[in-house]
């Protein structure tokens, strides 16, 4: 019964999405208030119906309803409860439904948090999101209905892929999808602006927090995926340049560019066309990512679904979305206008450089990901492009980007003077270079890559220090308090700080990690990275839905026992699959990592892989800081200003506490406090 309700709710949601995608947009064009007013209730109704539908699917998993084909394929009565729920998005149909839930949820939040936006704008944004949802509902109902029945019902399900039975992976897809789908809001704002032909600083201020939040979720999602790969795959790697990773990384890069370009559009009214184009690209790349993952065209660990019909549908959908929006762009963009002028040395130029570099980076990833597919489709040959290519391309781009990143936040808008920048940053530069030369020597062996990485991190850190110090000095002179610096400024600096932490992690792990594959008998020891591992044997045990071999290794440092590590080798009964569970001894300055290979001989020996991973957790800590920085920036009070207040002010009158040092730091209007 429940699955049928879910199915009907899904159809209802489709009908509502059609209404939501047509009437408000038409009403906005004709100035019909009644039609525009449909937008908000429609968005709410759509979310409610999708939520009902999603709830029904969750219920099918939780109650072991194996008459539902999708539940049969991805769940099992022995599966622990957490994984029964996460199994809902463990396969294609369910993850598409999760996608729907996300897009309806984003649409509903726009309806909720847009009280201060003009109705016309709200109608268009929600309308565009409705249109996007129509395509996806159709797709789900047509090619991948999760509520399909199998009669007679099976006694038990085929179980969730053991790789996915993990808490990290239970929340990785929702996070990632929040980000992917979140860019649909930025996209909808861009299309709404093109439709209305009005695009100004106010528009950028509306769309900026949404874009940043989507970006934050995508950042968390990617970081979680990377962390999962690190501890679950048993290889100790954290990024593989796997096509599916790239599929999520490309929207992230363009999203990062968009976040920066929106800053210029909001503050200076420039880059408008470019910002709109980036918003279109960011969402298109999210769709491309979905296509790549879900069509099964990629040879990858993630490609569970191999179904040409689905791939074709998404490809057509992608074509329609990208094609329509680009045509609209070509038609309307010339009307948008150019915005403020700026000199060669100015904040604008630095952000432009940021955008160009990020786009080049994205193009490089796109080339490496799609070229093998194109060659294959043309029947020329099968190739793969490995990590060396991406490393080779990425390191120089990031080095240049980081150089500009250190300077950018200190540069004035419109026009800046080079001598002024030099005098501000000369000590930061000196400190960075000295650190970069010395640290690798102290750590042991010197190499160019280690020095480069440390130089980049030190440069960011020291320039953040200079930037914040300058602000505080200036604001103290003007009689303000430290707290008067805006949250968006601190948010930006925190995110940049996260980049530095990330770079330290990557540099240290790449430069100083050690690993050994060894065969060990009981009592044998092996030393890696200054730590000694003693192998104490392997025992069998029984898990809820698997049998397992648990190894025991005692970890010593300087002769003192510091941890007992228990890596596992599990055998999952239903899927008859072997899984390696690594044991990790985590520390701030690095991890010790052990995974079991295979049993050797008859005396209880095993092949064992041991690693020392200095600073590896800094990689994810850095991503976390970037995300928190994003949240901090969004919490800035200027996003909560009333629209009436905003529209009265011109661009130049807006309190520019975020960036312009010449602006008086304390310029909080009375209204801001109240909202």
């Amino acid at each position: 019964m429940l699955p049928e309700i879910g199915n009907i709710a899904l159809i209802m949601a489709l009908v509502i999405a059609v209404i939501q995608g047509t009437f408000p947009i038409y009403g906005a064009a004709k100035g019909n208030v009644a039609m525009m007013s449909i937008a908000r209730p429609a968005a709410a109704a759509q979310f409610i119906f999708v939520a009902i539908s999603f709830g029904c699917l969750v219920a099918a998993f939780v109650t072991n309803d194996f008459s539902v084909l999708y539940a049969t394929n991805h769940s099992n009565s022995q599966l622990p409860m957490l994984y029964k729920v996460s199994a809902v998005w463990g396969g294609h149909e369910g993850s598409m439904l999760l996608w729907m839930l996300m897009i309806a949820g984003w649409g509903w939040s726009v309806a909720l948090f847009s009280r201060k936006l003009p109705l016309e704008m709200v109608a268009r944004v929600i309308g565009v999101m409705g249109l996007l949802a129509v395509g996806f509902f159709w797709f789900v109902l047509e090619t991948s209905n999760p509520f399909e029945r199998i009669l007679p019902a099976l006694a038990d399900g085929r179980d969730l892929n053991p790789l996915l039975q993990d808490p990290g992976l239970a929340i990785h897809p929702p996070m990632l999808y929040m980000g992917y789908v979140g860019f649909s809001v930025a996209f909808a704002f861009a299309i709404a602006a093109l439709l209305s032909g009005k695009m100004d600083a106010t528009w950028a201020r509306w769309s900026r927090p949404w874009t940043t939040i989507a970006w934050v979720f995508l950042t968390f999602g990617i970081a979680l995926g990377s962390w999962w790969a690190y501890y679950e795959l048993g290889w100790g790697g954290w990024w593989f340049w796997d096509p599916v990773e790239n599929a999520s990384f490309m929207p992230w890069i363009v999203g990062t560019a968009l976040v920066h370009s929106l800053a210029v559009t909001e503050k200076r009214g420039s880059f408008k066309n470019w910002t709109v184009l980036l918003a279109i690209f960011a969402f298109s790349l999210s769709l491309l990512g979905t296509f790549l993952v879900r069509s099964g065209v990629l040879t990858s660990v993630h490609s569970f679904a191999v179904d040409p019909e689905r791939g074709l549908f998404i490809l057509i959908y992608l074509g329609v979305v990208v094609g329509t929006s680009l045509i609209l762009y070509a038609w309307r963009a010339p009307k948008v206008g150019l915005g403020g002028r700026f000199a060669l040395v100015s904040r604008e130029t630095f952000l432009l450089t940021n955008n160009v570099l990020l786009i080049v980076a994205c193009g490089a990833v796109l080339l490496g990901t799609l070229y093998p597919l194109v060659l294959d489709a043309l029947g020329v040959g099968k190739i793969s492009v490995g990590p060396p290519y991406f490393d080779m391309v990425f390191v120089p781009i990031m080095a240049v980007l980081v150089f500009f990143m250190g300077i950018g936040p200190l540069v004035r808008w419109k026009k800046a003077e080079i001598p002024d920048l030099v005098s501000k940053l000369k000590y930061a530069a000196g400190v960075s270079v000295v650190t970069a030369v010395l640290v690798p020597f102290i750590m042991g062996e010197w190499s160019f890559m280690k020095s480069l990485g440390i130089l980049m991190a030190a440069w960011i850190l020291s320039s953040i220090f200079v930037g914040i110090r300058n602000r505080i000095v200036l604001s103290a002179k003007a009689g303000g308090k430290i707290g008067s610096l805006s949250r968006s400024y601190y948010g930006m600096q925190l995110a940049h700080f996260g980049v530095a932490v990330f770079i330290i992690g990557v540099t240290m792990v790449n430069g100083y990690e050690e690993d050994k594959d060894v065969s060990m008998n009981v009592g044998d020891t092996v030393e890696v990275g200054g730590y000694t591992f003693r192998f104490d044997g392997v025992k069998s045990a029984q898990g809820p839905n698997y049998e397992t071999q648990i190894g025991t290794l005692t970890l010593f440092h300087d002769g003192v026992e510091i941890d007992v590590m228990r890596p596992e080798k599990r055998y999952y009964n239903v899927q008859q699959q072997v899984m390696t569970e690594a044991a990790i001894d985590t520390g701030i300055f690095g991890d010790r990592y052990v995974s079991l290979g295979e049993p050797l001989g008859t005396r209880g020996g095993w092949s064992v892989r041991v690693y020392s991973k200095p600073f590896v957790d800094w990689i994810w800590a850095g991503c976390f800081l970037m995300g928190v920085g994003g949240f901090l920036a969004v919490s800035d009070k200027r996003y909560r200003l009333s629209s009436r207040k905003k529209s009265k002010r011109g661009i130049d009158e807006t309190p520019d506490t975020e960036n312009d040092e010449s602006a008086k730091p304390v310029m909080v209007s009375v209204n801001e406090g109240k909202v």
Partner: protein
Amino acid sequence: MKQRHKRLAAIIGGLSALAVITALLLNAFNSNMVFFFSPSDVVAKKAPQSGSFRLGGLVGEGSLVREDDGLTVHFDVTDNAETINVTYKGILPDLFREGQGVVTQGSFDSVGNFVASEVLAKHDETYMPPEVAEALEKAEQAAKKVDNGGAI
């Protein structure tokens, strides 16, 4: 006039920087492509004699041999027409099994043995890497042609 010159210089500078980046990028791309070959291709000398490539097929039944050090293994990769023996030192992935699809990356050593630096076995046990599936199909078709030729 001066302003315009400045802007022109900036644009030219930007474009040439972009050109340099593109050139470096394509160069990096070109030197890092890895081609895939089936055992039949390798026997037909289509694979590079020096340099890295990917070799894929099924792991030959009963072909896995482990050396005394416990880590060095030898196994056959076959497309049911031709067979290549592969040497690998390290721990094999969880899904590596005789009779299952596998993709290895490596190169020939000085005496002509294929030494893998990486062994990739995919995560889903019903999953067959598309390259391998295609290679098997090709080999089968080639075999059929030979059969037909013999019969007629």
